[in-house]
Every structure is written in C-alpha cells, then in structure tokens.
C-alpha cells in the first residue's frame, strides 16, 4: 500500500532527527558537568561540592537509608495535596468552562490567587493548620490547584463550535456532546494543566519543608546547610530535580500515547504531517 511506504520514510526521518538531538543533549550535559567540577575544585567544597563529591554523598545517604525516609515523608504530603488538587480543580475548571455563570462566580478569586505568591501565605497557613502534615498538604495543594483549574477551564471553554455543531446535528444530547466532544477536546489541556501543576506541587512540597517543618527532603537541606555539607545538599537537590523531571517526562509520554492525533497537527509536526498525508485513492 502506498501509504505504508510514506509511513516508513517518515519513521526514518524521525530516528535521524532524534539521534542528532541526543548528541546535542549529551554535549550539553558534559559541558555542565565539567564546568561544575572545575568550579567546585576552584572554590572548595565548603562553597560548592563538585559532581564527584555529590555522587559520593548521594551514595552515603542512600546507604544509610536517610534519603529514602525523607523521600517517603515528602511524597506523602505531595501525593495527598496533588491528588486533592486534581480531584477538585478538574471538576471546577470544567464547570467554569461549561457555564458562564460559574466562571463569573469564581473567576475573580482564581485570578487573585493565581498571582498571589503562595509562599507569602505560609504564615497564615501556619496559624490555621500548624506545621504538621496537614499544613504541608495545604501548601502543595495551593501551589498547584490554580494551574490545573485555569488549564482545564481554557480547554473546555475553547472547544471550537465547528466540532460541536456536526455532533449536535447528528442528534446528540447535551450529555453526549459533553462526553464525545468537549471532554476529549479538553483532555490535552487538562493534561498540560496536570503537568504544570505537578512541577509546582513539587516546588510547594520542598518549600513547605524549608519554611514550615524541618522534615523530608527540604528538611535534609536545612539540616545539612547548618553544617556546610554542600555535597549532601546537592545530592538532595539532584534527587528533587530527578523527581520533577522524571514525573513530567512520564506525563509527557502519557500525553503522546493518549493523544496521538495531537502529535503532527502542531507547527513542529508540520513537515511530518504533510509527509504523512497520503494521496487520495483514485483521485490522483
């Protein structure tokens, strides 16, 4: 079949593209590592531990079990806060996108909270919730809630009428329109809200541990900075970065699995999109 040939050429094009991409990436990492090691060597470990020392420190805290324990404490507050944010922000965003009166009702507060730095609210959070796990959950929640609401809201509100009208024309009920058009059309936006929210939730998690209770990964940073152990501090930072980057990557992979139709209809996929467009049968 003609279309298959076009398809395989397209894959070849992609794999070529990726190998070059990977080369540039590797060069970038190598450069950063060398620069870091040299700087660490010049200024001394009291100010900046180099990557080799960080790796040694990482090994140390992993083997002692301290890191795992801190990670569990952190992830507890993170998981509860993030799950609660998703469970409330997605329905709220959908209602706001669907019904103008709901948007009118909530919009000013959403806008206000969105621009307010959550860290500035931490004193109030301490007054209301103390410094236990509840308070850390609240911080994580407030960090990511609004990103998810706003992205979900935009996704639902901006569903194009050209998509809705043909389905309505086929006799769909309001419920069917919601399930078959609005929900799938908004899903990629909800997902990117979740992805953005996830990054912010991790930030919230660490900030709560720095400013509220000295516990979890953030607590490790506080404890070890008191004794100038920059190697351990960086080891913890590496773990936090890996946690963030890893989970965002995971969601991105999910996105391209869930929304294959999105891949090539963007400007970046433009060339691939046209390469993939097979000629109509019998038309040529």
């Amino acid at each position, binding site marked *: 079949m003609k*279309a298959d040939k076009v398809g395989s050429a397209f894959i070849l094009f992609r794999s070529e593209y990726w190998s070059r991409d990977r080369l540039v990436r590797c060069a970038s990492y190598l450069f950063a590592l060398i620069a870091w090691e040299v700087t660490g060597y010049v200024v001394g470990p009291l100010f900046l531990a180099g990557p080799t020392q960080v790796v040694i420190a990482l090994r140390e805290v992993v083997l002692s079990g301290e890191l795992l324990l801190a990670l569990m404490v952190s992830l507890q507050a993170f998981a509860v806060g993030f799950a609660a944010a998703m469970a409330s922000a997605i329905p709220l965003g959908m209602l706001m996108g669907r019904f103008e009166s709901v948007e009118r009702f909530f919009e000013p507060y959403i806008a206000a909270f969105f621009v307010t730095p959550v860290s500035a609210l931490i004193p109030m959070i301490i007054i209301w919730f103390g410094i236990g796990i509840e308070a850390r959950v609240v911080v994580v929640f407030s960090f990511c809630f609004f990103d998810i609401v706003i992205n979900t809201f935009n996704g639902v509100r901006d569903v194009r009428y050209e998509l809705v009208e*043909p389905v309505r024309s*086929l*006799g769909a009920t309001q419920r069917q329109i919601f399930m078959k058009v609005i929900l*799938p059309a908004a899903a990629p936006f909800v997902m990117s809200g979740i992805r953005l929210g996830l990054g912010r939730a991790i930030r919230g998690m660490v900030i709560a541990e720095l400013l509220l209770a000295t516990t979890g990964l953030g607590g490790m940073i506080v404890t070890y900075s008191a004794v100038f152990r920059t190697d351990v501090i960086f080891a913890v930072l590496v773990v936090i970065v890996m946690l963030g980057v890893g989970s965002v990557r995971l969601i991105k992979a999910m996105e391209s699995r869930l929304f294959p139709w999105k891949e090539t209809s963007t400007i970046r996929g433009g060339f691939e*999109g046209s390469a993939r467009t*097979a000629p109509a049968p*019998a038309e040529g």
Partner: protein
Amino acid sequence: MGSKILVRNISKTFVRKGDGDEESAVEALKDVSFEVADQEFVCIVGPSGCGKTTLLRIIDGLIPADAGEILIDGQAVGAPAQDRGMVFQTFGLLPWRTVAGNVAIGLEIAGMESVKQKPIVQRWIDVVGLAGFERYYPHELSGGMQQRVGLARVLAIDPVVILMDEPFGALDAQTREFMQEELLRIWNQEKKTVIFITHSIDEAIYLADRVVVMSARPGRIAEILRVGIPRPRWDHDVRGTKEFAELRAHIWKELRKDGHGVVAPPGD
C-alpha cells in the same frame, strides 16, 4: 411526486451587539419558501452572506427560525435528528477519532451496539472510497478525503434528507470535480433527497435537478430554475453543452441584478 421538504415563509434576523451598547440587526432570511420533491437534488446558489448557511442550519434544526416552518413528510422539524444529515464546509471531523471512529459517531449517538456498527461503518467507508484508511486520523488525510469522511458519517445514519453546505468549497478544482461526480454516483444509488449549497454556478448546474437562486440583504429567493440536462451527467462533457452555457449565463445575470456580484462581502 409529493414534496419531501417544505420550506414555508422562513425569516431570520440576527441581532448582534456592537462595540458599545448599540445593536445591529442583520436580516439574514426574509420570507423564504420552496419545496423539494422526494429524491430530488436541489442546489442553492447565492452571493456569500445571503443566508444560505443560515437556511440550512434552520432546516437541520440547529437554530430556530423567527417565523415560518419546515415540514419533512408533513411533519414540522424541531431539534436536529437522524432523519436529516448535514455535511459541513469545514468538514467538522473530530481530530481524536480515526476515519472509522468519525464515521461511527452518528450510530453511537443513536445508541447502536458496536458490533452492529462495524459492518455499517465499513460499508460506507468503502462507498466513499476510503477502504484502507480506517485507522487514519483526519490530519493525516487530504481535504478531499476528509470530506469523504464527512459524507460517510452522514450516510451511515441513513437519513432521508442530506443537507450539504458548500461541502467542496475548500477543495481544489480538480478534486472538486471528482467529488461532484462521486456524489452523483452515490446519490444515484442511494436515492436521497439532497439540498446542496454552493457559490459556484457550474457546480449547481452540474449537480441539480433544480437550482434555487438567492439574493442578499435580506436573503430571499430570486428564482428557481429547472435543469433539464439528462442524467447520468458524468459520462459526457455536460459542461460543454449549449444548455449548460445558457443556464450559466442566466443565473449569472440573475445574481448580477442583485448589485453585489457573486462574491459580496459578508455582514456589514
């Protein structure tokens, strides 16, 4: 032959809010009446902005008329239902559904079990010439192929009336002629009643049993012409015949009378 569709005294005015508080009204349709016989192919031509899309959306039940009524088999139409199917100028396919998924959506809405959907979906994919493309997404298809999906989606619900709003307007000339011929073949086999909107005079004459000529501001019917060219029309050069040329000249003159030409700026 009794009339299948009765369009009776349809009027529609759109009121739109301007920048400030001032409102402007556009009289999109004024007292439009005509009828379509069973299994007839009627084309509507008119300058852009004369209310063609509005009329079709009213017949489909997507928007209400201010006055008048639409009868199909003597029954007044209300909300959109599967006795009518509409093909859109912008195709209107769901980008997250494959060809097969898009064709199946009407059946899903009707609540048909998916095992029963499969043979119907495959049949119409075959009829519109898309066999082998079942798993393609709309963005992987050319415009002509996308509109074939739009047509198959409507044929799958087996409507008595098919409403087509400039369905080939976004296609290049060659694809367009090819699609016109395909459409006539399908219509010849399926014997549906068709209302087909176009701004191309040639397309109207080539396809229609009768051509309804509309004029703008307010949108109303200027003339209804019978196209006597024998069918099938795809086996000889219909466009080169004297009859075709005469009809074309006549409709052209009728549209010019309007003072807008064929292409007038919409709105204002």
